[in-house]
């Protein structure tokens, strides 16, 4: 059994103006992840350490942090990939609650504003949908709301005045837009009300996504293209033109 030094960021903003990294020595075992090490500190050294986790299986998106400066899930990052000195800090893009825990509640407010999935009224039930038509939306539905992409995005981080909702929310909108039974188009909303234009396609968000969602290529760019009415995404284009035809037919009926 080896040992590592874990430097954990500690601060209660209510009482401390500045935070500091505190070093803890942690014994390691096979296959250990960063969350195991941080929990070791919590259970054996200092129970007042604040951290957030839930599933410990990479499925819930609770344990987001910056590990050696890289936004990552603590429960999915193995110690043996990192050497024997590991730095763990809270996500910098969100207000700090305490230690490793941040306030991500602003995201719910944005999610409320994105128009909800709105089923087409013309399709007979139960719906018949081809597997191939669900694949695009399914990619976005893998999102576990870890907000790591929000954390890494320089627009969200440094230019909060822009009102840009951030990559997670474009993924959310895209998951509804590319749902084969959805009747809306959210791209104009994203452009006019969610600051989509401020994203300059640096792709940093895609790099940190633990669910390997191609945020920029498959969600952001198509939504941008749609917003300027240039149909970039072929699958979406087909779906959309099909929908348009249906809509036209329906309007005719009324």
């Amino acid at each position, binding site marked *: 059994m080896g040992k590592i030094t874990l430097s954990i960021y500690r601060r209660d903003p209510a009482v401390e103006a500045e935070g500091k990294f505190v070093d803890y020595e942690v014994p390691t075992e096979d*296959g*250990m*992840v960063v969350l195991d090490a941080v929990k070791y500190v919590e259970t054996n050294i200092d*129970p007042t350490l604040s951290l957030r986790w839930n*599933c410990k299986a990479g499925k819930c*998106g609770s344990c987001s942090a910056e590990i050696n400066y890289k936004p990552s899930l603590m429960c999915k990052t193995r110690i043996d990939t990192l050497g024997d000195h590991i730095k763990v800090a809270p996500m910098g893009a969100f207000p700090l609650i305490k230690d490793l825990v941040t306030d991500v509640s602003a995201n719910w407010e944005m*999610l*409320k504003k994105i128009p909800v999935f709105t089923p087409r009224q013309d399709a007979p039930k139960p719906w*018949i949908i*081809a597997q191939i038509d669900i694949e695009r939306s399914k990619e976005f539905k893998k999102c576990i709301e870890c907000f790591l992409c929000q954390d890494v995005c320089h627009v969200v981080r440094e230019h909060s005045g822009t009102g840009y909702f951030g990559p997670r929310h474009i993924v959310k909108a895209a998951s509804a837009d590319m749902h084969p039974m959805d009747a809306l188009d959210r791209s104009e909303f994203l452009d006019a009300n969610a600051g989509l234009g401020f994203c300059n396609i640096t792709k940093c968000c895609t790099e940190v996504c633990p669910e390997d969602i191609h945020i920029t290529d498959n969600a952001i760019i198509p939504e941008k293209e749609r917003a300027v009415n240039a149909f970039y995404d072929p699958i979406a284009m087909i779906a959309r033109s099909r929908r348009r035809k249906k809509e036209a037919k329906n309007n005719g009926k009324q």
Partner: protein
Amino acid sequence: MAEKYIDYETDILIIGAGGAGLRAAIAGFDSGVRVTVVTKSLLGKAHTVMAEGGIAASLGNLDSKDNWEVHFNDTFVEGVYISNWRMAELLAREAPDRVYELEQYGALFDRTPEGKISQRAFGAHTYRRLCHVGDRTGLELIKTLEDQVLHRDIKFFDEMYITKLLKKGDRVIGAVGIKLNSGEFYAFRAKAVIVATGGCGKIYKVTSNSWESTGDGLGLAFNAGAELMDMEMIQFHPTGMVYPPGVRGLLVTEGVRGDGGILLNSEGERFMLRYSPKKKELDARDIVARANYAEIMAGRGTPHGGVYLDISHKGADYIKTKLPSMYAQFKDFAGVDITKEKMEVAPTVHYQMGGIKVDPDTTRTNVEGLFAAGEVASGLHGGNRLGGNSLADILVFGRRSGLGAAEYTKKATLEDPSKSDIEGEIARVKSYLRDDGRNPYEVIEELSSNMSENVGIIRTETNLQKALIKILELKSAAPKVGVRGDLKYNKGLLACLEIPNMLTAAEAIVRGAITRKESRGAHARSDYPKKDPNFKKNIIYKKSGDEMKLELRPVPEMPENLKKLVDPEEY
């Protein structure tokens, strides 16, 4: 001493934002009453998110012979004849509607070649019945419901931990909670309270359950006078990971076996052919779990103390589309490529069949104003739960509890809780903040080791008595735990508050297991290896003073028209 707290008023207070809580919230809100949801984790993170395999509903998309009657029979028979017939009937009849409704809310299920919702085979379901989204069904379910909740005027408080239910006379009228991110106390006044807090797997050392599953709702309701039922019935899932140590217990979905995975011992024998020649790997969970356990005990286990689960013969493409999370889980955590190598698995504590006793149609409890739904409620699964029946359960009975509570609030009034009740509770919470307290994690470690060692997959009188002594000892030690720091985001404090609830759950399980001198479903005793007709009963747990009282009650008699659907019980 006067304590500070925030008053908050609503019609229905829902404790828990898993599938059951969220579905209840939608039903309550759509009935026109004010709804507030609280959860101890963040919105969208509840344990439900981990569900993998699917939702059981007899759509008959692949096997046209399937219908609610077959689903009803499967549920009741595998519950080993102590399920509540009415709950099993409602589940089987209503699950298809709930699945289609979820689809209308935006969930995207995998499809058949004809474009219908696809269904996979699962243990002891007669037909292919589980509607699924790869192996991420829980994520799709909870995100879909979350979206619906966010787009309704439903209030929610996340990271709000409820510590006590408030009563006036015999009626529940609200609850006290602490908001983790600020350390502020809240006094909720409500016409009705729904407990939807999920299970208690964390009282065991090796479990598939998430951090939250500490049986809080059991403790809250039990202390408010609610009856618990079937608590001795704890489901061991046959396949949890065994290696590396940090992920011991983590679930390997039954979908692996549903999609063709086979179990092998260290001699390469497909041993399920011996234990269950007909249903093999897809027999009910209790049977497969005990077979795995028996092979390990007989010395035919793997290097890390499991058995092998192999799906590599299905090929990489098939595995990566059907079981993407399992592929990633083994690659990321164990460095095992399941398209080429065998997995090592062993039984892991997975589900609590028992819980708060409820009325099937409305989910009300025996305490006025109090309702319960989801894993924390009991009656549906009896002695053993079928895979996929829980996600169906939380949708069907989550909705029913929202409707039941809404109906009740139309006649009920808001009451003022007594100030001294609230302040007394706040003082109790604060009393855990001290320098000389015993480390709560130590107590939890002792409890969970005790449960795993003595109240495992095969039980005996000696071990159960040993377990009970330990639990009673920990009960008297529990008030002495404590942590440093303050009220804000102090998980150590939370652990102190969870311990009494964990102990209530553990005590009930052990007392029930001692009382049930037979083997039935998930409850297996080596000293009473046979099923006994005298125990075709439910065990009820009630609070009487400071004691837990047990009572055996006959299983409610089912009407003749349903009896015809059920295979007769054999002894």
